[in-house]
């Protein structure tokens, strides 16, 4: 495609920040109805369950409903170590999700590879797919997960998620092409 996904080179920062009222309303709706796809590969899954359970209750933020199909979900939770062998599967799951979509890397293994530095572990899920929020911890406390979720919600509201930025960038490039 030739479109760079990086968000650092903005031709026109103002046009990126500009949001119509419709955008704001849509993003408001999106941030309170995240459908999670739990890509649970390792022990962090236990901690993920406690976040979803009644004590910490991720339902307060509208993200309680796991869909076990990537086609019906818009938040990919990578929970646990990603091995090199799993890389293609993870990428495929991500590609199957409909836009807009967001990704949270849950725990150090998903974020950086954690204490693995060897032949089988991938040094962070962002080697394969763009990740919006990283949660450190081995495993993270449930409060950290909720904090990350609030952070992601802020980002969704302001249109700064990876996939939102990508869409926006494509729009701007298309506009620039038509203006010429």
């Amino acid at each position: 495609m030739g479109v760079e996904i990086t968000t650092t080179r903005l031709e026109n920062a103002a046009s990126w920040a500009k949001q119509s009222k419709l955008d704001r309303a849509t993003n408001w709706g999106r941030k309170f109805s995240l459908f999670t796809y739990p890509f649970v590969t390792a022990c962090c899954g236990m901690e993920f369950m406690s976040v979803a359970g009644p004590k910490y209750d991720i339902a307060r933020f509208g993200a309680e409903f796991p869909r076990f199909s990537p086609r019906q979900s818009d938040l990919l939770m990578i929970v646990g170590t990603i091995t090199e062998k799993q890389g293609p599967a993870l990428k495929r799951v991500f590609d199957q999700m409909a836009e807009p979509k967001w990704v949270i890397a849950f725990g150090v293994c998903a974020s950086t590879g954690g204490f693995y530095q060897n032949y089988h572990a991938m040094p962070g899920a962002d080697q394969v797919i763009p990740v919006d929020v990283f949660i450190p911890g081995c495993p993270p406390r449930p409060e950290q997960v909720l904090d990350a979720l609030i952070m992601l919600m802020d980002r969704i509201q302001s249109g700064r998620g990876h996939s939102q930025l990508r869409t926006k960038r494509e729009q701007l490039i298309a506009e620039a092409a038509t203006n010429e």
Partner: protein
Amino acid sequence: MSAKVLDALKASHGSAIESLETQHGDEIAWIKRDQLLAVATWLKDNPAMAFDAPVFSTCIDRLDWKPVDVPPGPPVYPASAPWTDDGTKARFEVVWQLRSTLHRHRLRLKCAVPEHDARVPSLATLWPAFNWQERETFDMYGIKFDGHPDLRRIYLYEEFVGYPLRKDYPKEKRQPLVRRDDLPINPIKTETGGH
């Protein structure tokens, strides 16, 4: 108790034995590679032995291995080690642990394998539970098991080059299958020049 097993093994297959030892109460028999299958068949079928329960199978890489309390220097192999069939020092020990639920005795079979000819007879035909274990040993150490019904990699992918649990495999070397195109350093692109 199971010293009886070693005695019986010595009596019936004395020529196949490299050496016998006992470690922490476990009996260990070093078997010559070309007679391993005959010994194992006898251990399984003889009613006095009746080893019906395979416990595990694995491999040990003795590259640069030294016993404790040995001064630094070139690697020293124990003088008692029963290496090997062709005069060179064997690098690998392939291990099978057997147990008899009938007689309640145990035996560990070991086979010394040199690096340039890393193959041993497979015991998966006698004890099918060794099938996946020997595949794992092949996957991690590159030991070829002759007569194995399905010798493929079991944990790693077919594209993987080398055997990661060998001591000379670089311990941080990764062989990625997929990477993001926009990564600053995309190892797949740098290695293959795009895909």
